[in-house]
């Protein structure tokens, strides 16, 4: 038993025991919180050990009848185990007081949370197709149970749960078919056997396996066009669960893709990775566009997850392209960028969802149009969300800035190095990344500025209060992680590079300044941050010295001399996004509705004007609605088969017997 094995075993054991304890102990919230933290910490330890080279293999043939289970932990798996564990730690602390709400205190809901963490931790540790699939599906099951936890309160929860259940099952089947086709060729379902047999696969079979796996994993990662569940399930789940799903679970889609694409199939032809790259680029742009239009705080965060996973897939796709053209240096760089983005995204998305949960906890609403003015009453939450928003919008000194910089470096150096396909793909990818970055800035300025600053636009927002201390502590953990990743990414880079070895060579070195290995490029986020701080402090000093009038006067807002400004005059999230919505009118196709009510005395006098905007998911409308309609039609038609008439039923049998006898006579 080495550290990795012990840690993983502890994580599983603690998680399961916590779940059992939650069923019997009265003080459930605290027990589950502490248990989740311990389980997450153990997983983190195991993951870090695995990234530093400690590894183990354990076979459990008695589990999962007919298949058996096999677990191992290598650097790639270790990275994802560690990320999941870290998210679980923050979520566990946060959950201690967050789950005191009546719906969340229920025994079953409490018990499922640690099990969900355990399932997620086990997915990257699975070393056989059977073990992988069972952990994958367990993760889906537990997350589904958690998503519907608050079904009593909002009717949308049930609908979100349905979408989630069906989409996740669809993804699972896709992965299942892909892996089973692979297993059928390999003869054994352990990953090592698959790895060995990958060389003997025909290109067609390998392609089929890859595409099916890609579809399944993409649906888990919320990649367009399989994202439809994500902006439903993530907002409707309790916020700490949203954080776990959005920061840890979706990552496993990326894990699966890297595992199957690079590790098991050993890379592949250019078109695989072009497909990944294009899917990633489309998701990134589409996700952030939807988020930019969104007025629901948590839905916005969910859509931003689609965006970030899209960026990760751009990195993974680029890594594959480089690897397939034999450039291991750049492949390593691109994959490191992608994985660093995974880690960074986990940190800031945890923070953002936890902060959003805190807002929801205090105000009961997620509608940005009704929030605002939270800064004076919820200072810590506001600061946390602000930090998260900075991290998410790829601005320095933010978390996503470093990973996007690395990603763009890979894309830039890739252009002269690779073939025609890359020459077309790279500029478009850069454009997509750039467009995403710009829109992300606008989105998070909206979320933070409209949601937290200014004045409260509803009674709920005005009556908000700061959350209990454990919730703040949970956010604090995530905030520290964000800050560390933003300023000193070198802390995690060795582990990420170890994980990225499946595709390429080490890519980045240096503690203060990140220097690329093999290609030129250097960036020092910490110096950048330091320079900014020094500049701000120096400026403040200079202004203090130079400005002669030292007194600050408080004055009423400039309201053009008229009556006091009312919150109704503020810009809302809807109005903030209006110019962008006009610009991207053709892409998002919003539904606008203006209702003008006239005075009774005269129709020339307007009493009220109501403006409503809905931005329906266009892909959903084009892709899902027809399928759903088709299925519904099939159901309608199918009813004709079962009319209830015995004659008819006997007729089926009679004709079948006749037909079969005829067939037997003919084919003799």
């Amino acid at each position: 038993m080495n550290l990795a094995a012990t840690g993983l075993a502890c994580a599983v054991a603690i998680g399961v025991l916590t779940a059992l304890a939650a069923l019997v102990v009265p003080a459930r919230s605290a027990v589950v919180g502490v248990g989740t933290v311990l389980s997450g910490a153990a997983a983190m330890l195991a993951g870090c050990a695995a990234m530093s080279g400690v590894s183990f293999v354990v076979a459990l043939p008695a589990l999962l009848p007919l298949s058996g289970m096999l677990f191992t932990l290598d650097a790639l798996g270790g990275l994802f185990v560690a990320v999941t564990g870290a998210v679980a730690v923050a979520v566990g602390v946060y959950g201690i007081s967050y789950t005191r709400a009546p719906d969340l205190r229920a025994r079953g809901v409490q018990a499922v949370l640690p099990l969900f963490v355990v399932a997620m931790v086990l997915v990257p540790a699975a070393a056989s197709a059977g073990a992988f699939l069972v952990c994958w599906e367990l993760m889906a099951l537990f997350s589904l149970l958690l998503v519907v936890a608050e079904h009593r309160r909002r009717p949308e929860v049930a609908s979100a749960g349905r979408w989630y259940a069906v989409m996740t099952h669809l993804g699972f089947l896709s992965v299942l078919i892909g892996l089973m086709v692979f297993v059928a060729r390999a003869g054994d379902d352990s990953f090592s056997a698959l790895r060995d047999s990958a060389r003997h696969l025909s290109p067609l079979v390998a392609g089929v396996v890859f595409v099916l796996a890609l579809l399944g994993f993409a649906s888990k990662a919320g990649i367009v066009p399989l994202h439809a569940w994500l902006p439903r399930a993530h907002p409707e789940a309790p916020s700490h669960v949203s954080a776990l799903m959005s920061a840890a679970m979706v990552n496993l889609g990326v894990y699966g893709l890297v595992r199957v694409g690079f590790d098991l199939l050993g890379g592949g032809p250019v078109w695989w990775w072009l497909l990944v790259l294009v899917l990633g680029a489309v998701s990134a742009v589409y996700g952030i566009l939807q988020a930019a239009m969104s007025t629901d705080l948590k839905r916005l965060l969910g859509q931003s997850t689609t965006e970030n996973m899209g960026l990760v897939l751009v990195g993974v796709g680029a890594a594959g392209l480089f690897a397939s053209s034999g450039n291991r240096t750049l492949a390593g760089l691109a994959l490191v960028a992608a994985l660093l983005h995974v880690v960074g995204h986990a940190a800031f998305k945890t923070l953002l969802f936890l902060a959003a949960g805190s807002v929801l906890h205090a105000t009961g609403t997620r509608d940005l149009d009704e929030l605002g003015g939270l800064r004076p009453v919820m200072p810590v939450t506001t600061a946390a969300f602000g930090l998260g928003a900075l991290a998410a919008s790829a601005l320095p000194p933010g978390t996503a800035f470093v990973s996007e910089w690395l990603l763009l470096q890979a894309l830039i150096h890739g252009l002269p190095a690779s073939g025609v396909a890359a020459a077309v793909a790279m500029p478009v990818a850069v454009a997509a990344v750039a467009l995403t970055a710009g829109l992300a800035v606008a989105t998070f300025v909206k979320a933070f500025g409209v949601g937290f600053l200014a004045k409260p636009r509803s009674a709920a927002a005005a009556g908000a209060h700061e959350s209990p201390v454990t919730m703040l502590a949970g956010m604090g953990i995530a905030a520290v992680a964000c800050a560390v990743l933003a300023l000193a990414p070198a802390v995690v880079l060795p582990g990420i590079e170890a994980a990225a070895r499946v595709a390429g060579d080490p890519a980045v070195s240096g503690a203060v300044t990140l220097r690329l290995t093999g290609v030129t490029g250097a960036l020092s986020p910490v110096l950048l941050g330091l320079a900014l701080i020094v500049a701000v402090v120096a400026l403040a000093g200079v202004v203090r010295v130079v400005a002669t009038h030292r007194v600050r006067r408080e004055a009423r807002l400039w309201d053009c001399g008229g009556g006091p400004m009312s919150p109704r005059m503020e810009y809302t999230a809807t109005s903030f996004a209006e110019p962008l919505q006009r610009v991207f009118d053709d892409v998002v196709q919003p539904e606008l509705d203006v209702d003008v009510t006239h005075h009774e005395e005269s129709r020339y006098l307007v009493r009220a004007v109501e403006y409503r905007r809905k931005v329906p998911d266009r892909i959903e409308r084009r892709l899902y609605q027809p399928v759903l309609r088709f299925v519904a039609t099939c159901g309608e038609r199918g009813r004709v088969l079962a009319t209830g008439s015995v004659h008819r039923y006997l007729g089926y049998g009679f004709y079948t017997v006749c037909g079969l006898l005829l067939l037997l006579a003919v084919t003799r």
Partner: protein
Amino acid sequence: MLRLWRKIRTVGRVAEPAPLPPATDQPPAAAALAGSVQIRHVDAGSCNGCEVEIGSAFGPVYDGERYGARLVASPRHADALLVTGVVTRNMAEPLRRTFEAVPAPKLVVAVGDCARNCGVFAGAYGVAGAVGDIVPVDLEIAGCPPRPEAIVDGLRKLTGR
């Protein structure tokens, strides 16, 4: 575009040569401004005659800007309020608020006879008073309406240029 260029070339400089600087009875607060005055114009109830003249004062011919005066949109950015017209009841409170919104040191210029002493509207039922009744006035520019030269002259007293 070419036509515009030709026009620019043929017309040349429109601004008249600057007259002599006015007598130095600069309001005390204006000294701190040192050649830069941002102005917020407030129409407190004017007949718009003064506005027309203010427009010309900042037009190319009189070019008030050359002395360091500039019209701005927000009283927060302003150093001086340029108030025209009598102060009507509805504008009294907004005028006070505008004055309050200006950061110190600040000045008020009453432009035109109505602003100075209600002019022909004195005693009318809708009038709250002259500008001086509502906010402290630092400089008065007489005339109904005052000539652009007089306005520029007043502005130059503020900028000291």
